[in-house]
């Protein structure tokens, strides 16, 4: 299978500071890829590069078959993005938010209408579609933001700490959504500080000080470090460098 994200010797420097030190990894279609690391390890830098928002200092990077140096516009059209910080417009209704984002990606009005309906009925939100976002509980908003991010049927979705501050039940419902989306062939690239969520990923990379120190399925990693949980794997790796 041809990878959706291909990264080879990616280096990103800010002055003398090396934020990404020779990263190499591939992510395959329909995979849920956990991108873990401590605060300041360089995750955000990598995500920005993969989304076409920033150029690498050196190395080969392609996303959805497009080169990040030359084809960042095509990349942006083929990816979705959602983070805890970026969410929907609080003063617009659910419907208006969908219309707006659908419009950004050039969907026709018919497409917007149909997809909004499908996505909302999947969340069981059809009744609330004219509700203004401000009046909606936080957990719902997160799910809506995810639906908006996949509305234009991107090949890859980047989720940057999508579940921060969300209650444990909504968190699990959110992951159900992720599974379903991945099952339909969308590649999921996700960061999280919840280590139990790391277990839900197909493969996980752990970044420490700009380098990827481990990359494999949670099961293999736990065996490799002889521990019972991803939390312990993470702490072992991150502490080792301090």
């Amino acid at each position, binding site marked *: 299978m041809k990878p959706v994200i291909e990264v080879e010797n990616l280096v990103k420097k800010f002055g003398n500071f090396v934020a990404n030190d020779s990263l190499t990894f591939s992510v395959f279609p329909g995979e849920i890829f956990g991108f873990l690391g*401590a*605060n300041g390890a360089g995750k955000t830098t990598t995500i920005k590069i993969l989304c076409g928002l920033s150029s690498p200092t050196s190395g080969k990077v392609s996303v959805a078959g497009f080169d990040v140096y030359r084809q960042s516009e095509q990349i942006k059209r083929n990816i979705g993005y959602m983070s805890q910080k970026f969410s929907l417009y609080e003063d617009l209704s659910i419907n208006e938010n969908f219309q707006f984002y659908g419009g950004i990606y050039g969907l026709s009005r018919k497409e917007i209408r149909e997809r909004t309906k499908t996505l909302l009925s999947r969340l069981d939100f059809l009744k609330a579609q004219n509700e203004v976002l401000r009046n909606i509980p936080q957990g719902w908003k997160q799910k809506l933001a995810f639906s908006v991010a996949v509305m234009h049927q991107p090949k890859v979705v980047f989720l940057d700490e999508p579940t921060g501050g969300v209650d444990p039940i909504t968190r699990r419902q959110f992951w159900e959504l992720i*599974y379903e989306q991945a099952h339909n062939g969308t590649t999921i690239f996700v960061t999280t500080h919840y*280590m139990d969520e790391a*277990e839900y990923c197909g493969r996980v990379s752990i970044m420490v000080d700009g380098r990827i120190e481990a990359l494999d399925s949670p099961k293999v990693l736990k065996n490799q470090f002889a521990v019972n949980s991803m939390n312990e794997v993470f702490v072992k790796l991150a502490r080792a460098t*301090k």
Partner: protein
Amino acid sequence: MNTEMAISATAISKFYQDKKALDNLSFEIMKGSLFGFIGPDGAGKTSLFRILNSLLIPDEGKANILGFDTVKDYRQIRRIIGYMPGKFSLYQDLTVEENLKFFAGIFNSTISKNYHLIEDIYNHIEPFKNRKAGQLSGGMKQKLALSCALIHKPEVLILDEPTTGVDAVSRGEFWEMLQKLKSQNITILVSTPYMDEASLCDEVALMQEGKIMQRATPEKIIEAFEQTLWSVQSDNMFKLLSHLNDLPEIKLAYRSGDHICFIPEMLTFEEKKLLDHLEKIGHQSLHIRQIEPTIEDSFIFHMQSQN
């Protein structure tokens, strides 16, 4: 541990327009304890903390800290508490040291006066003391913010979600610091959306929609979980969950790390029967065992049974 009360609240309610943020809360917190308010965003933790630190006036009920009323005696209260707001981000354009100096100054203190209190924490960030606060990583910022909240030697420390968005290692370090502070007889109130942090508190209150669902020591909360909790794994976890949810003898099933947790109907559940059924519909490498519940399991069960 002494038995004096540091904080007591009676029938506190708070409304924002027609929305009820806090619903008739009453509780007492002992001096010198590390007390956790656990709950998701929007549960009312921030509103509660702002009432306790005198920044908000409750619509109903009253609260006092060390005998001072949070409305009437707000001046005294502000002298004895340290507070770290949720979105507190310090002055991004000032350096680490300038931030600390400033906060010491406004509380009529100096860095050297209470250095012993913050020494352990400040050690971690001192090498970067000439760096601007905006350039620190999330974990470091939290440590600096904690130092700033501690610099005037408060008797009660109120920390609103100090570990949100902070990585697992820094979170661990942060909690170690809190344990040390507790040993200096500082009462600490902390809120968090991370359930795993609950077990590090002396006592916790599980909050949801402005109410306290349960309040006890972490051990007691787990004891009070009068359900048997099982864990199961198979080669297809995604399908396994939906299969379990279809079964009438399963009350509740959800993912938890690398396995699926479920709570069976005690009367009709048989382990063997379930395994046979799952094997029949195509699951392989099945593992099933009874496990000890955690605070998170308890929280999920409470939330689910309320809906």
